[in-house]
């Protein structure tokens, strides 16, 4: 009997057998300008030599699974002979879903897992619950933790006490990686070069140059300086996908502060964009989204919980999800939460080694747990009792 753990994200799927390692694979399909007539699924993106103008077909909308035909194509690919060669009758699956998932999505998911693929058993769970499970396993003396999961579609702040999710404290900020990339695309297109079609390239730019500022207005001042003094400024060489396969930052000593470069590369000059873009998860109101940022929402969420628990939450803030990888993210969350909480509370912010795969690791740990067999719903159970057994057993 094997267990397949699938953290089914809106942009990437984190997948692997519980006795093996994890792979991060795009959970979507692509179409390319250069390869007409072909739709690429999941990791077939590696076959696309020129990903400029890449067109995305995503199974998720606002973080919820709505496009089932796309999702099934991706899953067929992941489970099939190209990748994991799943022996469904002999495999249990741990699969994640978003908080407050809609009933009809949950039922569709049950049907597809048990009736179409015919998995031996399944466990549907929130990705944050897996992260919390891992955190409690690693820090067995802690009673509470609060998970910040900042992904592609949105950011969730979820308190857990002794492994149980506290639904009243869940807080969602509608800012995620997609919004950041789209905003960066928008401002670059307005200020220097039309890149609205280049989601793939600009996402790479975002990952390569953006960082979280520790002192926002000071960085703004530095970014306005001329010449060498402007330590924020970067020149990013865009890929042309023939000689330059991947974009990169020009090394500082090769930067030409005064004017144009003689070499023919296409350059993006980035100043305040570098930190103003990630700043949106800290101040969504900067672009007109009237919601709290992460530190404020963290404090808001904890303040709505029983008073005697509050110090435990501030001591155990866990950052997961791709957005938390921006340099400076952890320090900034610490700094802001520290300044918003009374001094007699300890504040500690933990960023795991790999924030993207942290919940997958949690799923792996959970599948090795002696109680795991009690938590899953087997296909026989489902065929006997239908959706209600899933609703009963899964803590969703």
């Amino acid at each position: 009997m094997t267990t397949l753990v699938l953290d089914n994200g809106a942009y990437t799927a984190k997948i692997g057998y519980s006795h093996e390692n994890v792979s991060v694979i795009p959970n979507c399909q692509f179409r390319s300008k250069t390869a007409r007539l072909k739709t690429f699924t999941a990791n077939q993106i590696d076959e696309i030599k020129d990903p400029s103008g890449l067109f995305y077909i995503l199974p998720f909308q606002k973080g919820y699974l709505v496009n089932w035909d796309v999702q099934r194509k991706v899953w067929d690919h992941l489970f099939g002979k190209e990748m994991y060669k799943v022996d469904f009758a002999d495999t249990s699956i741990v699969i994640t879903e978003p908080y407050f998932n809609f009933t009809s999505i949950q039922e569709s998911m049950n049907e597809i897992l048990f009736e179409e693929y015919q998995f031996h058993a399944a466990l549907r769970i929130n990705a944050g619950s897996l992260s919390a499970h891992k955190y409690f396993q690693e820090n067995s003396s802690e009673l509470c933790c609060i998970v910040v999961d900042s992904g592609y579609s949105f950011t969730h702040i979820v308190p857990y006490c002794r492994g149980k999710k506290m639904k009243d404290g869940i807080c969602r900020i509608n800012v995620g990686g997609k919004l950041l990339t789209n905003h960066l695309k928008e401002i670059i297109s307005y200020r220097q070069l039309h890149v609205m079609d280049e989601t793939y390239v600009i996402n790479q730019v975002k990952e390569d140059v953006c960082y979280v500022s520790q002192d926002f207005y000071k960085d703004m001042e530095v970014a306005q300086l001329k010449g060498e003094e402007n330590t924020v400024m970067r020149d990013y060489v865009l890929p042309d996908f023939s000689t330059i396969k991947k974009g990169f930052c020009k090394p500082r000593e090769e930067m030409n502060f005064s004017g144009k470069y003689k070499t023919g590369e296409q350059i993006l000059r980035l100043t305040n964009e570098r930190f103003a873009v990630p700043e949106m998860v800290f101040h969504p109101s900067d672009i007109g989204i009237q919601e709290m940022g992460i530190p404020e929402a963290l404090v808001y969420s904890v303040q709505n919980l029983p008073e005697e628990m509050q110090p435990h939450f501030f001591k155990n803030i866990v950052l997961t999800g791709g957005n938390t990888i921006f340099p400076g993210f952890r320090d900034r969350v610490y700094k802001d939460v520290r300044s918003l909480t009374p001094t007699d509370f300890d504040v500690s912010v933990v960023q795991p080694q790999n924030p993207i795969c942290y919940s997958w690791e949690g799923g792996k740990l959970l599948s090795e747990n002696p109680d795991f067999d009690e938590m899953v719903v087997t296909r026989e159970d489902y065929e006997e009792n239908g959706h209600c057994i899933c609703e009963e057993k899964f803590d969703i």
Partner: protein
Amino acid sequence: MGEKKTSARAQEANQRRILDRATRQRRLNRQLEALEKDNFQDDPHASLPQLAKRLPQFDDSAEPGKKRKKTRGDHFKLRFRKNFQALLEEQNLSVSEGPNYLSACAPPSKLPQRHFCAVCGFPSSYTCVSCGARYCCVRCLGTHQETRCLKWTL
């Protein structure tokens, strides 16, 4: 009856169209919606004829097993084709009790709004009279009026 003299600046102000709050909010919502889009460009396959579907399927009536599968597909489309908005309405959250998707959304920030120049992104102290966008200097105001003010290009 003598004509009243008005300053050039006041005259200009009268001519300029000023958007009301509702319109400004609508424009902002449109911008935010655009930020949610998966792609800006059109599907590169959209103009191509759907070859596989146009071809007549000669042998599909021969096998009853195959036919069953086909109806299953149709059932699938009906049952699983729902967009986010339809799902949200179906769930009927406004009347349900306990925490849910709508109640979990972060409330507005208590911190004061910060303002940035719509052109260059640096802190701004001025507001465009017509559309309410922010700008930081005369140069940026010029760019704004030429490119974005009262029109939305992107």
